[in-house]
């Protein structure tokens, strides 16, 4: 069975894909769907949801359109999630690959360096980094990438170490290929599946991290994000529940979708490890 047929038969994963596509579509087409700028005051403050047709989710403490805020917030969340994951992969994959392939001192060095990052709690480090930099979208993205690459390096290292022992790597050595070429062409392609799975889950974690940072007021003040919306609404949570409820739901749906996709990818890429099939 091909990868795609296996993936398609996984109902959870397909639900995840549909949800994610919906979120992406809303983010991309936000300016077309919503005439209102998310920062612009359009009505009286604290307009409850479903009370006006053009402001379906009501307005916030300053009378801004919550639905538009949500849509623009999706852009920030997805962008930060994707870019920070890519950056984390760019750091983690080469480091882990070198450590796993060359072993010895290279491995020692790379792993001690990784552990240095792992001993500091993720979120605390991210807060410190954002506090040091200016809180802009790029610095937040970078901070998230810096706290999330160590698991990637460890995963890639372990995978590379196991693939390196396979006989086809010996065969490539005998063919006179350079070590670097063997690592890039023979070993790394065989570690792709777990990296893809991990990356899909990392996007979800990154979105949560960004939301948490924004909630604490460490987000980019010029970017509307879900975390910022919840943070701004926490003082009025009892009088205006919808201000924190809808962005919360948005975060849950997006993270859930990514997790479902990640699990589906895992099952489809590693069929022999899949839990639901018991074929000999």
């Amino acid at each position, binding site marked *: 069975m091909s990868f795609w047929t296996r993936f398609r038969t996984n109902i959870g994963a397909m639900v995840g894909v549909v949800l994610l596509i919906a979120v992406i579509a809303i983010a991309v087409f936000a300016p077309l769907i919503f005439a209102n700028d998310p920062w612009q005051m359009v009505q009286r403050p604290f307009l409850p949801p479903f009370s006006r047709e053009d402001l379906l989710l009501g307005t916030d403490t300053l009378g801004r359109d919550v639905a538009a805020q949500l849509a623009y917030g999706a852009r920030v969340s997805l962008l930060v999630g994707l870019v920070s994951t890519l950056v984390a992969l760019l750091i983690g994959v080469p480091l882990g690959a070198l450590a796993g392939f060359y072993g010895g001192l290279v491995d020692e060095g790379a792993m001690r360096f990784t552990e240095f990052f792992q001993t500091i709690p993720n979120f605390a480090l991210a807060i410190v980094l954002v506090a040091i930099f200016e809180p802009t979208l790029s610095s937040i993205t970078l901070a998230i990438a810096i706290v999330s690459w160590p698991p990637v390096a460890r995963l890639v290292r372990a995978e590379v170490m196991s693939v390196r022992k396979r006989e086809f790597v*010996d065969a*490539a050595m005998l*063919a*006179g290929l*350079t070590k670097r070429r063997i690592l890039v062409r023979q070993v790394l*392609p065989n570690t792709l599946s777990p990296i893809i799975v991990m990356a899909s889950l990392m996007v979800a974690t990154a979105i949560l991290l960004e939301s948490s940072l924004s909630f604490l007021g460490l987000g980019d003040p010029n970017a509307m994000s879900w975390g910022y919306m919840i943070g701004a609404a926490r003082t009025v949570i009892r009088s205006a529940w919808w201000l924190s409820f809808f962005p919360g739901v948005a975060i849950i749906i997006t993270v859930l979708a990514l997790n479902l996709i990640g699990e589906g990818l895992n099952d489809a890429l590693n069929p022999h490890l899949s839990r639901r*099939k018991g*074929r000999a």
Partner: protein
Amino acid sequence: MSTLAIEHLTIGLPEGADRPFAVEDVSMTIDKGQILCVVGESGSGKSMTANALMGLLPRGVTVKAGHAMFEGRDVLRLPEAEKMALRGAQVAMIFQEPMTALNPLMRIGDQIAEVFAAHDRFTQAERRKKALDLIREVQLPDPEKIIRAYPFQLSGGQRQRAMIAMALALEPKLLIADEPTTALDVTTQAQILKLILDLRDRRGMAVMFITHDFGVVAEIADEVIVMREGRVVERGTAAAVLKYPQHDYTRRLLDAIPTGMLPEQRALSETPALEIKGLRKIYRTGGGFFREAREVRAVDDVSLTVARGEVLGLVGESGSGKSTLGRTAVRLVTPDGGQVLVGGVDLAALPEEELRTQRHKVQMIFQDPYASLNPRQRILGAITDGPIARGTPRREAEERAKELLEVVGLGADAASRFPHEFSGGQRQRIGIARALAMDPELIIADEAVSALDVSIQAQVLDLLRDLRERMGLSILFITHDLRVAAQLCDRIAVMQRGKLVEIGPVHDIFLKPQKDYTKQLLAAVPGSDWEQRNESA
């Protein structure tokens, strides 16, 4: 009355499998004290039959029809609770790989005692005593020590004995043995087979013995059933089936067995393709401030030559250092001392960069056809990588690769496919083509046919023999199987614990072995008596 009677057993495979039934309309009976050998190649359904009896069928695989009467009850249709009571107590099973079948975190004694505990027999103290008795019965050395040992502290043969002790704990009436000696060395295999024969005589168990090796059949079987693609193709007494096989397939299987018929002696060239002088490789493990490091002399001062156009067989049990020697000769392992001369160049002493340009001189065919090809690379790439790295123009390398695929009997269209589209035997052919593409002076074949079924094994050996004639190949053929070595090799070198025990022309080694160890190895080959009887008849 028979202990077990299987009637018209049919086991269905899930949809999308290569055939609808794993086992189709199979019947067999085993009497008390009888050993029934179920023989077949991989995929013949022989293990499925055993698993069905034990209720160990994988999910999606179900019994579609038939009965298996044991003690007047149909074991296929017992409720799970009764099956559990039956397993271990009445029907016991031993597996191919004793390391994975034993719990690595439990002491041997506790694992045996657990069998009693699971069936609520005896008190703690009695269980321990019984476990000790069993360990003695399966002739494990130093029972008091073994009972407290963990599986990793035992050798492969000892682990299999421990498994047998567990299986025997509750005095089962039927013992199912699924390839129990396949993972073992010949001498250990001979001991385990003898143990099973002894136990059968002493306890009068019925034994269902699953194997792919007709040599083993000749050693222990009373009755034989030959299976192919889920069907029984032949049945009868061991003597009858081995001597007068009726079915074509049985005949082909028997023909495919390396018979120990020795090849004609050939004149060997004087020029050496490979000279190994005083080679040494020591592995050190453990060691620290308080403990001394453990030293294993994997290769201990070995010298030998392979003449141009010669096939030298390197034979030994696992741990004899034969693979290390092979890997040192291609410099996948760097030796601690000695020389590896290929065409006058000492590969063992070259620095890395120079070595890379000399690599092509010695190529290797690997053991595991599933691990030796990159699953994400097309065959063409696998074969042309080496020549292109050496500077051959891509087009030329690709032409040559296609030619070589023809030579090894696959056809040029194999080039654009991925490894998973090929069977084990075909992959081994690809491995051979890959080695040939480098125009090597010497090929090292490390257990190159050990993972293959006998009939496939015979084909690959034929190919190697043919290539030897056509291309004048020099091959260092590493194997644990003397019968295979006898078929192909001009000379044979026997290794034991890192040392070269004996080396000489294949006829001398087989007919007039000088050293005791060589004699032992020859005697342990399963079915050796039967072959001799056959030849004299």
